[in-house]
């Protein structure tokens, strides 16, 4: 009897697909919340890889089996689309930058701590590799602090590493993605200044359906799901504008 039920269950399971997704490091936390909802509602499975957008670009050009890319910028998906490696580009999140310390009370609500000099190291992501790093440099430039603070800057190769430098206390302060330090609309720990969006160009993060996922219903379903109200509300709760 059990075997019979198992056999009957196979066609349903076969219809549910699997999608391989390359996810920018800053979007790790929200994506890990979105995927169980997506899987429960559609029956599809999503396999996530986290990393930096530049690395994903190199891997995709060299045949990586990803079907959907959730990039940390809009330039890389656009480039891939131009090269004929994907389609259906849209902005799934607009990133917000935060100046964060794990020490409570070190960062004030206006970011005046940057002028105080009460810190030895300021962590940022590499501006050439990470849009959040570029936004951090732009912010420092607009505040007129870039040259004075330059000797204190330490660069992570991506935003996850900038976060790690601050989280381990090796840097007292750092520019990180708000999504890394905020959940459910609240700061998880330490102190932070949410950098006003007027201080840097918007960090548009685009999704792209890659060539390998063109005929995969699970990939199309995920692209749709990310645009849905439920996903958007969750993305917003991590501090993204969308």
């Amino acid at each position: 009897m059990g075997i019979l039920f198992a056999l009957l269950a196979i066609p349903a399971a076969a219809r549910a697909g699997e999608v391989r997704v390359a996810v920018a490091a800053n979007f790790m936390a929200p994506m890990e919340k979105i995927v169980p909802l997506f899987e429960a509602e559609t029956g599809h499975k999503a396999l996530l890889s986290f990393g930096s957008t530049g690395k994903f670009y190199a891997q995709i050009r060299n045949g990586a089996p990803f079907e959907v890319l959730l990039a940390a910028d809009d330039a890389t998906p656009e480039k891939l689309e131009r090269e004929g490696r994907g389609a259906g580009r849209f902005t799934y999140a607009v990133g917000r930058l935060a100046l964060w310390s794990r020490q409570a009370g070190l960062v004030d609500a206006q970011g005046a701590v940057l002028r105080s000099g009460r810190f030895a190291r300021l962590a940022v992501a590499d501006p050439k590799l990470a849009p959040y790093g570029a936004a951090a440099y732009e912010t420092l430039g607009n505040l007129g602090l870039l040259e004075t603070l330059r000797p204190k800057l330490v660069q992570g190769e991506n935003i996850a590493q900038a976060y790690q430098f601050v989280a381990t206390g090796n840097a007292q302060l750092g520019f990180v993605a708000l999504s890394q330090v905020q959940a459910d609309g609240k700061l998880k720990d330490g102190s932070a200044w949410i950098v006003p969006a007027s201080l840097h160009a918007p960090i548009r993060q685009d999704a792209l359906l890659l060539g390998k996922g063109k005929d995969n219903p699970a990939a199309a379903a995920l692209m749709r799901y990310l645009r849905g109200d439920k996903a958007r509300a969750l993305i917003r709760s991590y501090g993204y504008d969308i």
Partner: protein
Amino acid sequence: MPIEMEALQAIWLTVKLAASTTALLLLLATPLAWWLAWTGSRWRVPVSALVTMPLVLPPSVLGFYLLVALGPDGPVGRLTEALGLGVLSFTFSGLLIGSIVYSLPFAVQPLQHAFEAMGRRPLEVAASLGASPVDAFFSVALPQARGGLLTAAILSFAHTVGEFGVVLMIGGNIPGQTRVVSTQIYGYVEAMEYASAHWLAGGMLLFSFAVLLALAGLRRHDARVLP
């Protein structure tokens, strides 16, 4: 395409780091290898295992624990702060500490093999001729183990040049201070600057080939003492 300033800076820093690491490692590894070769202590096996660990640990593990240890709450960080040196992560000294840990087995093992291959006999002869242990070490043992010494130096240097995961974790990617060749190449690839990446990565290929050639030459020259 000419090689860029930042690449030259990374090459110079890498050479400086590898040379300093090699010099310090030889000072540190020689007595350690000597002790491991001759001691009857029950600590020999655990110490030997500890020395070998960087060979099998992923650099991300070493890098992560170094980051934690060097940080303000870590044991090394507390010590360096108490000594007035500040926190060493993101500095050249921090990279130097990381490289010494990372390349330790590459210095200790060839030396230990060389000492063991030499055997006790030359030292006994030196002692019977009236040489003090220190004299015997410097005028008999070290010259006998020169093949091992050279191999240790070459491997330490080359292995430090090839270091990646540890610097990525504790370096902070600061041009001229902590950005070495391997992280510079990684940055070029990530930034999609493939032409620059090829220049530097191709150079590394030639360099490692040259190192292995040199080692093969040494091995032929002095097959007895090399691992």
